[in-house]
Every structure is written in structure tokens, then in C-alpha cells.
């Protein structure tokens, strides 16, 4: 007997179970953590193509003549620079400079922006944006209108192109097109969270299972495999991409997280700007940095990091890197130690294990 509310299900839930996925409670969603195994799925994405159900991700839409004003006020990047069909990574910040969420902003039209947000944050994000809406925009939590499937890997384009007349080679990285897949409307974005080439497609929920099965069939010649949240995490960790609740949260500013590239001070006022200016003026106290384990042991999320025996920071994400065959991670350290080449110790189950700081990312795909 349990008082926990029933888990939310994506439109692909039955498909995952039919594929023999191991399902887990991921922030209230019943999601596949693995099918054939995390290492196999990870390597399949790096070497060929993998298919992810990311329908748990949220979608918010901002519409109205002054949609840009609202989007630019609540986010850190400069949405005025986006062309129609272009997307960028951005942050939603509190007034105190910490993250509400990290998001992708897509410009559909001058009066229409499409935001992809984290599953567990969508209601909070919606309330945050709605509360800042003094421009009479229409803000919609449109998550239930979309399923999202990520096709990722060097063979992603070849796989998806078999199902669409939309010319994928014409969609540059971090651009998108409203086209079709198998004849039905689809928003096809050249984006991803794996460090590999790939696309994220947004489709109507009732068509998700058909698209999923068509993609598995189209990618069969390349060895496509379904991939779960386990591989999604090892892939994004190697690529040095932030995960909300780990590298970033309400207590962390984008400057500390190494995300100054999504903060555009010159665009004018935005939520959190004052605090970021103050941080810049005063200098940062801490910063995110990568590490590699040197001793035997795996530094994992939440483990303490010491420098010269003194507690100095904590691991935000850590684990084995299947591609590099090393144990890697990211951690926060005092600003003067958050540089590559610093000897650190990670406290692995009450034992100090040697590690060394390294730059982020750990992995860059070959061009």
C-alpha cells in the first residue's frame, strides 16, 4: 500500500515495456532507465544511433506581440538575436541569481516562442514566467500537446531523413524546422543532450508510438537501439552538459556553473541581472570544474571533495565514462582551486581517493 500518487506516463510507456525496459520513477514519471544495458546504449549513441523517449520534458509557449519582451525578461540569453527557426540554450533565474531552470528557447515567429523545459520544473517554470508577465502575453503550459523523441548519434540524420521530406541537411545545429515525419506535422530540432549529432522531434502524443516504431525500423540498418535515462546521463556527463538539480539549482548562478556564455548583460534588464552584476564586480567564490579519478574508486553525486585534506567542495555528477574508460565527474571548488591540474581528493565512502581537476567537456565529437 502506498500513498504516493500514480506515476505519470509518456505516450510511449507501453512501447518501453514491450521492449523489456527497466522502468524507474524519475521525478514522478515512469521512465525507462535502460533496455539492453547502459554501456551498450551509450556506445550505440556514440558510434551509430540511439532513440530516446524524452516526452517527460515540458513545453511552454509564449505568444503575443510582446512575446520577446517577456522571454528576454525571464531568461538570460538574448532571444532578440534568434531568427525564425533558430533555438538557443538559456537560463531562467530568480531575482537572487539562482536557477529556476535551464531551458531551450525556440523562435517560431516574432510573436511566438516555444520553450523546452525540464520535466520536474515545468509547473514551477510556468508560474515563474506567468508571474513576470506584464506584457499581456499568453503563456501556455503545452506539455500535454507534445511527445518528444530524441534521435542521437552519427547516424541520426541518415535515420530520420528516411522518414521525412524535410531536408535535414538544411537545418543547422541549434536550428529547427516545422516539417513532417511520416506525413504528419513535426517540429524537427537539430538539438540534443548527448554531445553527439542528432535531432529532437516534437510530435502529437497520439502519433508518438508510430513515430517511435518507424524510427527503430528506419535505423535498423545502422544498428539503432532504444536508449534510456541511464545512457542519457553518461552521455551528457561526458559532454559536460549541466543537469538541473546537480550542476545547477536555485543556489547556483550561471557564472558559477561556467554558463556565462548564456548570460547577455548587454541586452538590458532581466530577472537575476542585478545579482549577476554584483557577483561579477565582487568576483566569484566558487566555480564548476571537471575531474578525473586517479586512485581506485568512483566519485559520485554529492560526495565531498577535499584539497590538501580540507573540505573544499562537492561532486555534482560523477561516474564512469564509457567512451574515455575513466571515472570522471564535475564538482564545485573554491575559485582559486577551480582550475585544471589541481590535485584533489574525493571522499568515496569515507575513504580519500586521489583525483585531478580537468577542463569541461570531457568529450567532443569528431567533426
Amino acid at each position, binding site marked *: 500500500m502506498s500513498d504516493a500518487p500514480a506515476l505519470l506516463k509518456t505516450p510511449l510507456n507501453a512501447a518501453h515495456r514491450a521492449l523489456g525496459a527497466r522502468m524507474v520513477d524519475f521525478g514522478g514519471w515512469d521512465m525507462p532507465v535502460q533496455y539492453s*544495458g547502459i554501456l*551498450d546504449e551509450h556506445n550505440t549513441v556514440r558510434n551509430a544511433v540511439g532513440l530516446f523517449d524524452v516526452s517527460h520534458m515540458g513545453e511552454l509557449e509564449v505568444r503575443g506581440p510582446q512575446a520577446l519582451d517577456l522571454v528576454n525578461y525571464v531568461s538570460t540569453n538574448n532571444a532578440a538575436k534568434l531568427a525564425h527557426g533558430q533555438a538557443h540554450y538559456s537560463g531562467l533565474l530568480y531575482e537572487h541569481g539562482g536557477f529556476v531552470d535551464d531551458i531551450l528557447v525556440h523562435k517560431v515567429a516574432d510573436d511566438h516562442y516555444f520553450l523546452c523545459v525540464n520535466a520536474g520544473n515545468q509547473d514551477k517554470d510556468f508560474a515563474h514566467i506567468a508571474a513576470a508577465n506584464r506584457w499581456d502575453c499568453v503563456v501556455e503550459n503545452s506539455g500535454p500537446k507534445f511527445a518528444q523523441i530524441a534521435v542521437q548519434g552519427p547516424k541520426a540524420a541518415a535515420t530520420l531523413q528516411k522518414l521525412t521530406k524535410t531536408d535535414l541537411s538544411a537545418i543547422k545545429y541549434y536550428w529547427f524546422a516545422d516539417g513532417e515525419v511520416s506525413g504528419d506535422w513535426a517540429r524537427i530540432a537539430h538539438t540534443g543532450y548527448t554531445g553527439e549529432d542528432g535531432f529532437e522531434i516534437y510530435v502529437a502524443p497520439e502519433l508518438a508510438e508510430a513515430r517511435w516504431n518507424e524510427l527503430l525500423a528506419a535505423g535498423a540498418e545502422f544498428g539503432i537501439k532504444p536508449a534510456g535515462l541511464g545512457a542519457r546521463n*553518461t552521455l551528457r556527463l561526458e559532454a559536460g552538459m549541466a543537469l538541473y538539480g546537480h550542476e545547477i539549482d536555485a543556489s547556483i548562478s550561471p557564472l558559477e556553473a561556467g554558463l556565462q556564455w548564456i548570460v547577455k548583460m548587454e541586452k538590458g534588464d532581466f530577472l537575476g541581472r542585478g545579482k549577476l552584476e554584483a557577483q561579477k564586480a565582487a568576483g566569484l567564490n566558487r566555480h564548476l570544474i571537471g575531474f578525473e579519478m586517479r586512485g*581506485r*574508486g*568512483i566519485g*559520485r553525486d554529492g560526495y565531498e571533495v577535499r584539497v590538501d585534506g580540507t573540505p573544499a567542495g562537492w561532486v555534482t555528477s560523477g561516474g*564512469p565514462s564509457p567512451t574515455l574508460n575513466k*571515472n570522471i565527474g564535475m564538482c564545485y571548488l573554491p575559485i582559486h582551486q577551480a582550475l585544471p591540474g589541481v590535485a584533489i581528493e574525493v571522499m568515496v*565512502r569515507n575513504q580519500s581517493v586521489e583525483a585531478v581537476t580537468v577542463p569541461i567537456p570531457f568529450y567532443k565529437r569528431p567533426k
Partner: protein
Amino acid sequence: MTYPENYRYTKEHEWVSVEGDTGTVGITFHAQSELGDIVYVDLPKVGSVVETGQSFGSVESVKAVSDIYSPVSGEVVEINTLLADGPEKLNEDPHGAAWLVKIKLADPAQVSTLLDAAAYQAYIAG
């Protein structure tokens, strides 16, 4: 998967096989299956003393760390050195080549209090 009839099992998914006064300890097929790809095994030192129900090491998969609880009390007389460089062997042969430690049993009779193969299989079947 078959669970050897001559092994005894715990609800924490370890097994022990007794010969004379020595117990060989491992984790079950079910345990490795639940963990997924195993990438690291941390074992106690030879000569250390372990007690029933006490954590003596850990097994790490890509995703998570899992404690190993000793099914028996005694002194560690040997550890499986194959696992340091080949932790994935735990996924391949958990009831055989990928045993973890051998323990000189403080009380060999204690083993009879553990689950037999049928009881363990009924337990994991829920």
C-alpha cells in the same frame, strides 16, 4: 537462471557456498541483473574480520553503488583478484568465477539459518 541448490542465500542478494569451515561468498544473478553493467568492485582486505549483516564492500554499476552485506561471520582468507580488472565478470558468471571473498567461518552451523535456493527464488519472485 538456475540458483545452485547447495548454496544458501540472503534477502540482500548474496550467496554463500560452504566447504569444510570455509564459505565462498558472492552476489546473486538477480543482484547483478538489477544493478546492470558492473564497473567496480570494492572488497575487504585478506585478514579482516566480518560479521553477519555487516557491509564488507560494495559493487558499483554505471548508475549506482550497492553495499555487499556479509551472509556469515568470520575472517576473510581470500579475495577474488580477477574482479579488480574485470568487474564485468560479475555480470557474466555471478554464481561461479566471479565469487567475491572466501571467509573462514566463525560458526559453520550458522549457514543453515539462511534461505535455500527455493526460498530465495520465491523471495525474488515477490
